[in-house]
């Protein structure tokens, strides 16, 4: 009882601060861009949660953007081969993910990462260079990338579940859906001859190292 009154009393002055005025006014802005009456992200309780949310969304957005560019690179090389349609299909799903994150970033006034041009170039280069090694190379790259993305999403899901699963229900649902899509891509890559041993081993190791560093680096730098 005391604690409830205490938190109510202490949270109330926060609403008077200009930052909170801005945030409450933010809701009127979002009505313009989205016809939904709710948002996937719950309105933040305080500055700390807002920072944490924004960081998470920024990294996810950067990840999807990078994945998009990787597939674009692969398509540029293998677009007219037999694996073209397969890669195109996976690319389309990634485009949907990116669109969703763009929407969320715009609604919640999240700053996009300043490293986007870097991910643009690096992603395209990675996709194109692995595709130059043929279908196996492209699939091995896909497997490695999707694996690290899934791991990243899984750790986010864990973090959100640990902190407050009820509060973040919609966000959790969305991330789980995306994670399942990425796992599908990973399995598709495995199905389509990514396992020719030498290529796969060399590739997956290098790619995984590269991708882990990219994702860790992006988490650090994008903050």
């Amino acid at each position, binding site marked *: 009882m*005391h604690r409830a009154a*205490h938190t109510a*009393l202490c949270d109330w002055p926060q609403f008077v601060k*200009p930052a909170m*005025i801005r945030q409450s*006014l933010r809701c009127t802005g979002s009505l*313009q861009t989205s016809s939904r009456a709710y948002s996937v992200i719950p309105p933040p309780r305080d500055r700390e949660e807002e920072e944490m949310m924004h960081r998470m969304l920024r990294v996810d957005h950067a990840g999807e953007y990078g994945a998009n560019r990787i597939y674009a690179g692969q398509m540029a090389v293998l677009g007219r081969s037999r694996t073209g349609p397969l890669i195109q299909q996976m690319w389309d799903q990634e485009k949907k993910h990116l669109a969703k994150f763009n929407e969320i970033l*715009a609604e919640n006034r999240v700053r996009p990462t300043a490293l986007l041009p870097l991910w643009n170039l690096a992603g395209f280069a990675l996709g194109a260079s692995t595709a130059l090694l043929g279908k196996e190379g492209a699939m091995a790259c896909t497997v490695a990338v999707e694996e690290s993305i899934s791991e990243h999403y899984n750790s986010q899901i864990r973090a959100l579940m640990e902190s407050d699963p009820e509060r973040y229900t919609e966000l959790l649902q969305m991330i789980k859906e995306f994670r399942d899509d990425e796992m599908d891509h990973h399995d598709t890559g495995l199905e389509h001859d990514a396992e020719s041993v030498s290529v796969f081993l060399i590739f997956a190791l290098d790619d995984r190292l590269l991708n882990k560093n990219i994702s860790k680096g992006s988490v650090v730098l994008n903050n």
Partner: protein
Amino acid sequence: MAALLRGLRAGRLLRGLPSVVAAPASTNQQCSSLRRSFHCAALRLQDESKSDKSSASSSSSSSSSTTHHEHYQAHSSHQDTEAASQQDPDPNSSDREQDEEYETEEQLQAQILAAALEFVPLYGWSMEAIAAGAESLGLSSASTGMFPNGSGDLVLHFISQCNSKLTEILAEQHNQVQLGQAERKKTADFLRDAVETRLRMYIPYIETWPQAMSILLLPHNIPDSLKHLSTMVDDIWYYAGDRSTDMNWYTKRAVLTGLYNTTELVMLQDSSPDFKDTWAFLDNRIQDVVNMATTAKQMQSTGEAVAQGLMGAAVTLKNLTGLNQKR
């Protein structure tokens, strides 16, 4: 500083205890009514500032709590029972007290700074203005001790106040557009109006504004002033309808920051009536930006067309030389 606050609050308490002051020395009958009126007063005190009750029980604030005790004891002989009942050890009290003081202190600081703004034309952005502001509120001029970064605090407070006002105005305009009561402005016009509105807030302090700007450039004030600037620019773009999530986010804000800063500098040296020249300068700069954006777009589409032409030529060549056949 904390003792000062408690002294201030004690003054307010005295004003808020008319029923207790009015009660004479007690008889049994008057004791109960006294106790009841004291309970009412205590509840009112609770609403005003919970920490006072808990400060009586916390040992860390012994000096001021004895002050409170003296005040209470001066008015009622049944003070002791009341005080004893108030001394319930409350595990949350020290936390609550600290949080309450923090909030009240911030509000108090905000009030003093707001009062000090009136004296800025006279004393400049300085400690004297803050001291004069404190005195105008009936506080001692020694409360400038609350502001170790005095003039910086004053300028930053003023700037954040201006930003809040701007955000309110922009939100109001946005609502009007949503309700269909107003037309949606074009981006260039919107930016011009927003920057003009914001800069007009400086007009009452324009004489001393160079001093304020130099204060903002001091190393320890730079992070805060940059934060205020960036939130203001972000707000203006948001209400202008920008929802970009790529590098445009950065370029747009950089452009507006440059626009705002240069116009501010021009305003400092402008002596035309109602700063006509400044607004004309702003118009021209916005026009430049619009032209640049249009040119950039044209260049991009030209470049794309050229690239397509080259690809077409390459494919034609490949067809002619037979390299394009599937083997």
